[in-house]
C-alpha cells in the first residue's frame, strides 16, 4: 500500500507513460537490430520510472534537458510520439525534420529541450534555462537529467555549483544506472550515493529507488517546490538498472549477472502495477489494456513514419543561420 496526493487520473497517466516508454524501447530495439533505424540507439529499457516520476512533478511550461539515453525522458515530458518515431527514422515529419536523430531531438511544444550526446554538457544548458526563468521572473523550473558517469564530468560540477550560488530554479536529476558505457560506477568514483555530493555544493540531495516511480515523483516534487519558492537547486539521485547493453545490439553476457537479475526483479512497471492493483485503482485486465494500447500507439507511429518522405536538399540548407544577418 502507499499514500499519495496524486489523483487517480494522474496515476493512470504515469502508468500509461511507463508502458509507452517501454513499448517504444522494445520496438526501437527491434527496428535497430533489423536495420530500419540507423546509427547507435541507447535504450532506457528498465529505467522508465526515473523519467516518468520526474516529469510527473513538472508542468508543461517547465523545461527538461535530457541525455543520450533520452527516449523515456522525452516521452515522459509528453513529446509527440509520431514526431519522435519519424525523427528516429530521419524523416521530414520528424520533430526536427530528421536532422537530430535519436540522441538530440527536441519538442518545443512541451519544452523537452532536448537530448544531448555530449555527456554532462546538457546540465550546463539547463542552468541557463533556469537563469532565464529567474531573471525573467517566471515560475518555471528546469530539470537536467544526467547519468552517474556524467556526474564525474567537470561540466556537471561547474553547472551545479554555479546554479547553487545563484539560486537558480533547477533540479539536477542523476539517473544512476550504475554504468558509464562499459565501466561501472565504482570504477569511476568512490562515492556510493551520488546525492551525497549535494552537501559539497551546500544544497539538498536525496537518493531514491529510481524504479519506484512514486519515490522519484516525491523527491523531485520537493525539489521543484524548493526551486519555485526561490530557494535554488537540488540534487536527486534515482538508482535504476538498465535492462539492456550500453546501446541496442551490445551484448550483456559479460556484464555482472547479479546486476541484471536485480534489474529484472525491480521492473518498474510491475512494481507500480502491483501497488495500483493492491490499492484497488485498477485491475490486471485494465493494465493489460494499457500495455496493448500503448504498443499499438507506438507501432502505428512507426508505421506511419516509415511511409513518410525523407527531407530534401532544401531542408539541409535551412537554419544554417536561423536569423537574418546584417
Amino acid at each position, binding site marked *: 500500500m502507499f499514500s499519495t496526493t496524486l489523483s487517480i487520473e494522474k496515476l493512470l497517466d504515469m502508468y500509461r507513460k511507463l508502458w509507452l516508454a517501454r513499448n517504444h524501447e522494445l520496438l526501437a530495439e527491434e527496428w535497430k537490430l533489423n536495420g530500419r533505424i*540507423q*546509427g*547507435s540507439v541507447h535504450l532506457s529499457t528498465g529505467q522508465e520510472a526515473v523519467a516518468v516520476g520526474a516529469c510527473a512533478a513538472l508542468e508543461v511550461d517547465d523545461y527538461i534537458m535530457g541525455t543520450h539515453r533520452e527516449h523515456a525522458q522525452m516521452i515522459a515530458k509528453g513529446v509527440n510520439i509520431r514526431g519522435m518515431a519519424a525523427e528516429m527514422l*530521419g*524523416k521530414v515529419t*520528424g520533430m526536427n*525534420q*530528421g*536532422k*537530430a*536523430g*535519436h*540522441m*538530440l531531438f527536441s519538442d518545443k511544444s512541451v519544452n523537452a529541450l532536448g537530448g*544531448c*550526446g*555530449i*555527456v*554532462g*554538457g546538457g546540465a550546463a544548458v539547463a542552468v541557463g534555462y533556469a537563469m532565464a526563468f529567474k531573471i525573467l521572473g517566471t515560475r518555471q523550473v528546469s530539470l537536467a537529467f544526467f547519468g552517474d*558517469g*556524467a556526474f*564525474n*564530468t*567537470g*561540466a556537471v560540477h561547474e553547472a551545479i555549483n554555479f546554479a547553487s550560488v545563484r539560486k537558480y530554479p533547477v533540479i539536477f536529476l542523476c539517473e544512476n544506472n550504475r554504468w*558509464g*558505457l*562499459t*565501466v561501472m560506477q565504482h*570504477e*569511476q*568514483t568512490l562515492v556510493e550515493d551520488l546525492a551525497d555530493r549535494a552537501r559539497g555544493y551546500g544544497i539538498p540531495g536525496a537518493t531514491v529507488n529510481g524504479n519506484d516511480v512514486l519515490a522519484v515523483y516525491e523527491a523531485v516534487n520537493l525539489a521543484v517546490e524548493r526551486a519555485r519558492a526561490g530557494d535554488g537547486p537540488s540534487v536527486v539521485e534515482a538508482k535504476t538498472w538498465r535492462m539492456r547493453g550500453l546501446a541496442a545490439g551490445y551484448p550483456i553476457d559479460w556484464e555482472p549477472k547479479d546486476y541484471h537479475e536485480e534489474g529484472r526483479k525491480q521492473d518498474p512497471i510491475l512494481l507500480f502495477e502491483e501497488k495500483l492493483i493492491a490499492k484497488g485503482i485498477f485491475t490486471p485486465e485494465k493494465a493489460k489494456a494499457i500495455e496493448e494500447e500503448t504498443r499499438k500507439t507506438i507501432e502505428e507511429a512507426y508505421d506511419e513514419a516509415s511511409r513518410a518522405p*525523407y*527531407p*530534401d*536538399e532544401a*531542408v*539541409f*540548407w535551412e537554419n*544554417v543561420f536561423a536569423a537574418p544577418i546584417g
Partner: protein
Amino acid sequence: MTMKKVTYRQAINEALFEEMERDPKVVLFGEDVGTYGGVFKVTDGLKKKFGSDRVFDTPIAEAALMGAATGAAVAGLRPIVEIMFMDWIGIAMDQLVNQTTMIPYIWEGIKVPLVLRTQGGSGSKGSCQHTKSLEAWIYHVPGIVVAMPSTPYDAKGLLKSAIRNDNPVAFIEHKMLYPTEGEIPEGEYTVPLGKASVKREGKDVTIVALSKMVVESLKAAKELEEEGISVEVVDPVTIKPLDMETIAASVKKTNRVIVVNEAFRTGAVASDITAQIQEQCFDDLDGPILRVTAPDVQIPYSPALEQFWLPGKDKIKQAVLASLKR
C-alpha cells in the same frame, strides 16, 4: 618482405601492442579503453596483456585526461590518451592549448612525449555530436604534430613513430576506416612522421587528400582514368608539419591542384594547405587551386541529409573536371 592483410583497426592495435612491449614507460588510458577494449575495439586485449597499471579505464573527464597525460609525460611516462570522439575534443582543448603545447617551448628543456589518439569522420549516421572532423583546431596550435593516416600500413608505422617521438602528437583516426583492409609487413617497420605519400601517380591533376578522402580520391581517380584523365593522389599522412616538398614536386608535374578535406569549409586544414601551395608553387599553377570540403553546415542525422554534407568521390570528380576547364 612477407606481407599480411589487416584492417586499419588491427594495424593500430598492433602498433599499440608492439610499442607497449618495447617500452615499459608507455601507458594507455581513456574512457572504455581497458576492460572493453575501446568502443571501436581498437585497444582490445591491451589491458589483459599489460595489466591495469599501464592500461586503464578512466572516469568521464576529458579535461583531466588531457591534463594528466601532459603531467605524466613531463614526469617520465610516455602516455597514450584516447579521446573517444573528436566531437568532444573541446573539453580537452584548453589543456592541449595552454599546457601540453606550452610547456616544451616556455619551460625550456622539458619535453611532453604524449600521443593523443582520437577519431573523427562522418558517414555513420551518428548525427552532429558524433561525426565532426575538428583537426583544424589542433592543427592551429603551435608545437603539436598532427597525423591523419588513411591506410593500415601508414596507421601502424606512423603510430609507432608517434609513440617514440618526444613531441606531443595528435593521431587522428577515421571511424569509417576501421574496417578497411590493406597490406602491412609481417615484421617490424615504421613510417616517418612529416613525410607525405604519393598514393597514385598521374600527370594531369594533383589531388591532396586527407584521411578517408584519400580513399574517395583514389576511387575518383580510377573512374577518371577511364575518361582519359590522369590523376595523382598525394596523401600528406602527417598534416603538421606538412611535407611541402612532395606536394610541390607533384604540382610541378601536373600544374593543377585539388585539396580534399572532410571538414567544415571555413578554416579547414584544406584552406591552409591551399594557401601554402599558392605561396610556394604559384609559378607552377595553370589555374586556381580548388577545394573539396564539407559545407559550413552542422552534420544532420537523416541518411537523406547526410549525403549533402559528405564530400566524396563524385564531388571530387566534378572538381577535377572543373579544374581542367580553367
